[in-house]
């Protein structure tokens, strides 16, 4: 049986379907977008070849693009803090709780299964100013002036709010992964540390968290990848606004391609997103591998 699976033809037979689907729906479309990116095309009529003009305009002239890059990087950092480290904290908390653990796990996980559209609608209503939503109505009980506190319509707050809502939705997912990893840490390690005089905090900092380090890195890579391409929360909650205060690279790509009808320019943004994901992903993997070797 083992030998059968070692044969190249059999391995290829298993790999080929996934390779074919991935190539068709990911690799081909990336190259397709790359080919569009050297044209000026509004989706109707003839395409005009413009070479690298779209890229040069994006990189040299388009300040809104750079705002979206800055916002995306900031957004990604927030997502890692919220989803990975927030999820880890909740998982640690759950490992310490004995009563109602399953209920709490379910409650934390519920947002994961609610659709993004529903979540953004809920938060849109909760944080509404006109008419006042639940949050502002409650705040107005403390101070009447707070009835008009702006959240998604405040350019200084909108990106935080979008990041918070996405973090709220996915924190439960990473909590479950971390919880599974933490309960898999051998109990003997903790017991040995206790005998050596380590307190609870030291046990987590020096034994349990280092033990699940590969899981943490895997989760960071997942969140990194998802956040750099994040689209739905910003688009549904703020449409990248007000102005371009919560514009992410993916929403900017959509806006250029499908609202501004600049398919070539939008494709150039898409290719830069792919390149950014590849660079940041590679750098992170290299850094995490190097630190692993040091340890």
């Amino acid at each position, binding site marked *: 049986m083992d030998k059968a699976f070692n044969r190249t033809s*059999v391995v290829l037979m298993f790999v080929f379907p996934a390779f074919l689907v991935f190539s068709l729906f990911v690799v081909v479309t990336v190259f397709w977008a790359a080919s569009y990116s050297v044209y000026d095309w509004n989706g109707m009529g003839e395409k005009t070849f413009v070479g690298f003009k779209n890229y040069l305009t994006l990189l040299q002239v388009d300040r809104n693009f750079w705002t979206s890059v800055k916002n995306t990087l900031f957004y990604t950092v927030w997502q890692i803090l919220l989803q990975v480290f927030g999820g880890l904290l909740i998982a640690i908390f759950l490992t310490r709780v004995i009563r109602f653990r399953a209920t709490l796990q379910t409650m934390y996980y519920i947002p994961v299964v609610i659709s993004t559209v529903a979540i953004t609608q809920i938060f849109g209503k909760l944080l509404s100013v006109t008419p006042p939503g639940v949050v502002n109505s409650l705040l107005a009980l403390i101070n009447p002036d707070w009835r*008009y506190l702006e959240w998604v319509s405040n350019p200084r707050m909108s990106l935080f709010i979008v990041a918070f809502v996405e973090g709220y939705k996915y924190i439960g997912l990473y909590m479950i992964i971390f919880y599974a990893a933490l309960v898999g840490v051998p109990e003997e390690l903790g017991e040995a540390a206790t005998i050596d005089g380590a307190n609870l905090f030291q046990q987590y900092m020096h034994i349990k968290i280092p033990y699940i380090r590969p899981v943490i890195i895997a989760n960071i890579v997942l969140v990194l990848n998802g956040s750099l391409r994040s689209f739905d929360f910003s688009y549904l909650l703020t449409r990248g606004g007000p102005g371009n205060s919560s514009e992410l690279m993916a929403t900017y790509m959509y806006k250029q391609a499908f609202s501004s009808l600049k398919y070539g320019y939008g494709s150039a943004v898409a290719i830069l997103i792919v390149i950014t994901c590849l660079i940041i992903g590679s750098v992170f993997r290299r850094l995490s591998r190097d630190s692993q070797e040091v340890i």
Partner: protein
Amino acid sequence: MKRKLSLALVIVLVLSILAGCGSTATQATAGETQAPAQTTAAVTSAADTGDRAKISVMLRGSETSSAYKVWSSLLDGFIAEKGYDLDVEYELLPNDGDYANKLQLYISSNQLPDIFGAANGTFSSAAKAIGSLVCVQDEMTKLGNFDQMNPAVADFFADADDGKVWLFPESFNDEFFFYRKDIFAKYNLNAPTNWDEFLQVCDTLKKNGEIPVVIAGAEQWQIMRYLSFIPWRVTHDKFIMNYIGGQDKFSANAAAQKGVNLVKTMGEKGYWQPSFTSTNYTDAVNMFFGGQGTILYSGSWLVSNASEMYKNGQLGLFPVPDAPGLENMTTNIPIHGGFATAFNAQTYDKVMQEFFAYATEHYGNAAYEAGMLSPFSEPIPDTMDPLYKEVRALADQSTAGWVSWDDKLDAATLVAMADAQQQLALGMIDEQEFITQMDSQIKGQ
């Protein structure tokens, strides 16, 4: 044994892949065969008998929207009157962006439905360029009823290239400011006649803790109205058409600069309600007619919402104020025909021609039944709210149509302007930055 096992594995995998591909291929083939067959049947039938199996309609809106009510009533009436065995296939898209994407897709693939909604601008030009637009003016002239179309509505739909009307107007809309007479009286204010007075009124209201103006800032056209009021009063369509054509720019046009200053002042001084950039149109209307806010810019389509407050003497109307220090045109009530409807020239067979004639004859009544003012000259029925007559009378002296920047601008400039006007109103950029951005944007286009 091992060889047999690996062979069996390979066979199972190949069979499963073939089964999956086979079923997909079968479905695709069936679909592909079916679609052309339907098309051929329809074309053959229409060509041979002058009849067809269905009429396809794509509208921006839902089943509760006025456009659907009017066109469905007309199509039902037409089919019943002629006794045709026709199906009507509706495609309704309530979201503006989705509608624009779908329309663009149909234009690109040259598969527009028989009847479709389109604004007078980029999309109507694109549909015209591929020969998919019936010239409404020519058809109505042939039928002898083009002169019944309101001249300002006709002006609103005049094509930028040939000046002809290629689109069927949805309604007669005039726009104006609703204001709360009771709140104005409380602070001894009069309806403003120029923009300086308007800002003074806003200032007084703000200082007294009122919300001066309600606006649906989440909708790009609402802030854009304030940007375009002064250029419209001073230049009608000259500024925007010359801006699009590259012969004028914000930095060189005093009226356009005053428009930019107006948006900046309204936003900066807090004359619009808190969180105005996230207020959608429905919320803004509900807010104003629910008793919050003092002034709302809207139009004749809100008569049913305004009726009760108007009867109670709480509500007044005033036109677009003059731009002080500049020469203003006489027309101060923006008139337009709403989101128009187009007839596809490529499928404009005998049945569609008959329907066009039927629609022009019955459109007025259908519009009134749907609660809209007719774009044609039929008198307003006595059964309608008397306020309709008053808002229609406001525009009696108007000859020049409204010029919607959001219809005229190309998609890329429109998106850029929508973002920049929000930034301007929120103080994220100043007037000079806005002007620089917009001038370089149109230059790039």
